[in-house]
């Protein structure tokens, strides 16, 4: 019998190698497809959302005449409140007209309200609040920065073109031509939109004024509630189940149920929260405290499962060592097991928090989808004030009609993603920092 050469592969080896090659190709294809999908998602979100961080503003001098804004002359805000936003709107329009004329811009082609439409409906209210907060402004001429109207803003972001403007009753090509001239004159500017992350939500017709301020605060409040409740309860439950509880049918049942709870659809927790926290306990709707409690319930099993896994991963030899010296079981856990399990626990907790941050469905059920204009107060009482939440705000904006909200919703997704990436970065950092060899 001749000995086979090592240089020639036999049939079996060739077949096995071919299988391995095919398997690698499948894996590579899957990863490439996943990356392409991710890339597409990011391009679409950033393409739509980045303009939300820019905003078109009109800056011009406004003279706040006493005869118009404070006929009584008392400078009493309660009396001055008689001048409505309509009055302030006329003041703004007049001031813009004066500025445009001064810059030599021909406004004759504009239709009725064409000039007023350049300014966002939000701006008269902003000016009114400014004046009511500081009545001494009356009689002065101030430089006021007004938001441009949604269509004008859209024009500079490529959403509105001269062709679409001709069909749009809210704007006109002539108006956009005036806007272009104002831009040349330096009255109209496009700059960073800090209001997007500080201002409250705005009504359907004012996408240019809609911001995430309340949603961000609401989400932060909820995350604080979840962290304060879910971390200690989750870790304590895990430590008890893993280190102290007798292993019997009852603890097996609990274990199975925790695993099941982690898989329960989140909207079910929303119904639970509605029934218990709002209907039974009587907590207010739309409040971050209720959202936080619901998300705590939802997050608990998601913290308990990785925490128990982290505790299990601590080698039993460490427990033996501590017990062998005469440490009590609690000392063994707090001095040795928990510090070693800490990276796993923190990672699990932060991933759980990140999931809670992005959760929408349960919050819809407890009323966090409500339109909220007033900022919630400082904690702890602020936890009971109505607020919005980031993912719900995104959902909310995607349901609105004005095309300006497409950009706002995508921008909000970017903000949410930044929060999530930051949290995951913290998780990775903590894991690295606390990681130890044993």
């Amino acid at each position, binding site marked *: 019998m001749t000995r086979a050469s090592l240089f020639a592969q036999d049939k079996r080896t060739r077949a096995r190698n071919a299988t391995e090659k095919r398997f690698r190709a499948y894996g590579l294809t899957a990863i490439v497809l996943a990356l392409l999908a991710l890339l597409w998602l990011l391009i679409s979100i950033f393409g739509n959302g980045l303009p939300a961080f820019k905003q078109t503003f009109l800056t011009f001098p406004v003279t706040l005449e006493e005869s118009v804004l404070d006929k009584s002359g008392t400078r009493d805000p309660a009396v001055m409140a008689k001048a409505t936003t309509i009055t302030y709107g006329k003041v703004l329009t007049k001031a813009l007209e004066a500025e445009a004329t001064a810059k030599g811009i021909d406004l004759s082609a504009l239709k009725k309200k064409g000039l007023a439409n350049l300014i966002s409906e939000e701006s008269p209210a902003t000016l009114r609040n400014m004046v009511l907060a500081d009545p001494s402004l009356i009689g002065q001429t101030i430089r006021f920065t007004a938001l441009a109207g949604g269509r004008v803003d859209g024009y500079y972001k490529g959403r509105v073109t001269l062709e679409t403007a001709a069909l749009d009753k809210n704007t006109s090509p002539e108006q956009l031509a005036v806007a272009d001239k104002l831009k040349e004159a330096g009255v109209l500017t496009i700059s960073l939109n800090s209001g997007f992350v500080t201002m409250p939500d705005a009504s359907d017709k004012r996408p240019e004024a809609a911001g995430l301020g309340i949603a961000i605060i609401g989400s932060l409040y909820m995350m604080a509630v979840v962290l304060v409740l879910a971390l200690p309860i989750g870790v304590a439950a895990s430590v008890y189940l893993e280190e102290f509880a*007798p*292993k019997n049918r009852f603890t097996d049942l609990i274990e199975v149920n925790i695993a099941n709870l982690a898989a329960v659809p989140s909207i079910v927790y929303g119904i639970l929260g509605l029934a218990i926290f709002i209907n039974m306990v009587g907590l207010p709707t739309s409040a971050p405290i209720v959202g936080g409690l619901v998300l705590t319930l939802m997050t608990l099993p998601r913290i308990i499962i990785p925490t128990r896994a982290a505790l299990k991963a601590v*080698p039993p*030899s*460490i*427990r*033996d*060592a*501590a*017990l*062998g*010296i*005469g*440490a*009590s079981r609690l*000392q063994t856990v707090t*001095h*040795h097991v928990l510090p*070693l399990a800490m990276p796993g626990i923190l990672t699990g907790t932060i991933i759980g928090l990140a999931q809670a941050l992005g959760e929408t469905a349960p919050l819809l059920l407890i009323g966090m989808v409500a339109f909220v204009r007033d900022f919630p107060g400082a904690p702890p009482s602020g936890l009971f004030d109505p607020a919005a939440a980031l993912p719900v705000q995104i959902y909310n904006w995607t349901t609105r009609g004005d095309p300006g909200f497409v950009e706002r919703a995508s921008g909000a997704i970017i903000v949410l993603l930044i929060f999530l990436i930051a949290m995951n970065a913290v998780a990775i950092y903590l894991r690295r920092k606390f990681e*130890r*060899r*044993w």
Partner: protein
Amino acid sequence: MKDQRLESRVDTQTIKIQARGAQVYYGTNHAIKDVDVDILDKTVTAFIGPSGCGKSTFLRCLNRMNDTIASCRVEGKITLDDEDIYDPRVDPVQLRARIGMVFQKPNPFPKSIYDNVAYGPKIHGLTRNKAELDAIVESCLRKAALWNEVKDRLAAPGTGLSGGQQQRLCIARAIATSPEVLLMDEPCSALDPIATAQVEELIDELRSQFSVVIVTHSMQQAARVSQRTAFFHLGNLVEYGETGQIFTNPIDPRTESYISGRIG
């Protein structure tokens, strides 16, 4: 290493630990059957026997480490200085402070060398101040023949030492609580011959202060370090006596078979 067999004598006759009719069950498995043994003070007692014969299980009964295994049940009477260690009034935590243990695999805490040794005295409140603690750490590391190797790096992690050094660190940690009995479960099985020799030398020195019980697979080791030897087989204590007698003139035929390598 010189042959200690002929010189090894039992120094005292005080009984430190006494077991009478000790039975251990893992669930329905009867692991230790009716063991009677007297462990003397200031003596090294070796437990030998084939794998699975129950010698480690019995060792872990002596400081109630078996309590951590839910299915494990101990019957019979085991006393330390005539007090039943399985009496319901006994707190195993206090018991373990008096009966220290060194495990098969070196298991230092992932903390500094200093903290490893200082941990026991700290949790038992044996010291009043840092100076006393420092003194204990130093004396224990000296007793464990480790001081000269680590005195310049007490803050370094204990897990960074070599295997033999780690095991000596574990011994230093175990004696830092001033136990009366030191249990050692195959302390040299993960060590090379040089480290083994160091640990064995150490065991012989520790005998002057503690009663040492050592489980070992190596009959040479049992012969080298112990004064008394107990041979376990299938959960029974087959023979127990002076080490010299067990190795040179065993009474039970099973002991003889094991020692001469026919069973095991």
